[in-house]
């Protein structure tokens, strides 16, 4: 990697860091200022942060197909576990 390549990458990482801090600030503001769907908005902000960290800091976006397949399978399993469990819960409420 060249020196200029390093600084370009560092600036991108810095912009991502600022975006993540902004999402944290938004989460706190939303949590403290609204009752309706505040928690859900905060969770959405958290999921967005997870996606950004995964895609850029962990470079999942540029990962080999096998790693993408592994991560996607785990995510699908996790989501199905959540959906099926919550579906079971709501049938009992």
């Amino acid at each position: 990697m060249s020196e200029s390549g390093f600084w370009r990458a560092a600036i991108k990482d810095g912009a991502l860091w600022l975006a993540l801090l902004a999402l944290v600030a938004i989460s706190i503001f939303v949590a403290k200022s609204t009752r309706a769907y505040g928690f859900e908005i905060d969770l959405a902000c958290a999921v967005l942060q997870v996606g950004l960290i995964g895609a850029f800091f962990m470079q999942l976006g540029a990962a080999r197909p096998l790693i993408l397949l592994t991560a996607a399978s785990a995510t699908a399993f996790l989501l199905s576990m959540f959906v099926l469990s919550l579906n079971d819960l709501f049938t009992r409420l």
Partner: protein
Amino acid sequence: MSDAETAALREPWIRYTEQRDVARFGMWIFIVSEVLFFGAFFLAFTYLRILHTEAFETASSRTGLAYGATNTVLLLTSSFTMSLAVRGSALGRHQLTTVLLGITAALGSAFLVVKGFEYRDDLDKGLWPGPSFPIKVAAAQLFFSAYWIITIIHVIHLTIGIGVIARLAQAIGRRRLPLVSPQLEIAALYWSFVDIVWVMLFPIIYLGGGA
């Protein structure tokens, strides 16, 4: 293979690119297993929150938001410095990489210090499930049971990460580990995962209390 890659090559690998790819894949498999591990906790928490929404909101409002927010900033910044360390290693800069790894470990340690103060505060307020629990709503104890379990497990993961990063910083600083070694990259993956877990924990523990 370059001289640096030859120096980083370990048995049984005969090609550096294979070693690096397998190391990355191995860490992703481990991360996936940990995602499922923490996912089960998050699922249980979500299940309980839906069953006892008001109790969980009451309990969440008693957590220390200032501590949680500070720790979130510390961990996000440490992920940033860890990412810069990986970039520095690609540039071949030993000192820059060592310094950035040191800063990452220091930020992680600062998280532990803040967490320690928060735990002390929580214990002073009696927020430990048991007969003398101060919130007289039954399910609030469930919230704090989950809080203690999941945050302590996260702290254990973080402490292991700090140890790994500190060891890497020392090895790279003393030039005992080549910069192209896959160890740095997989340590960065692990550290970002620990950050991701906290990013999900922060809203469910500290921001679930409502306006």
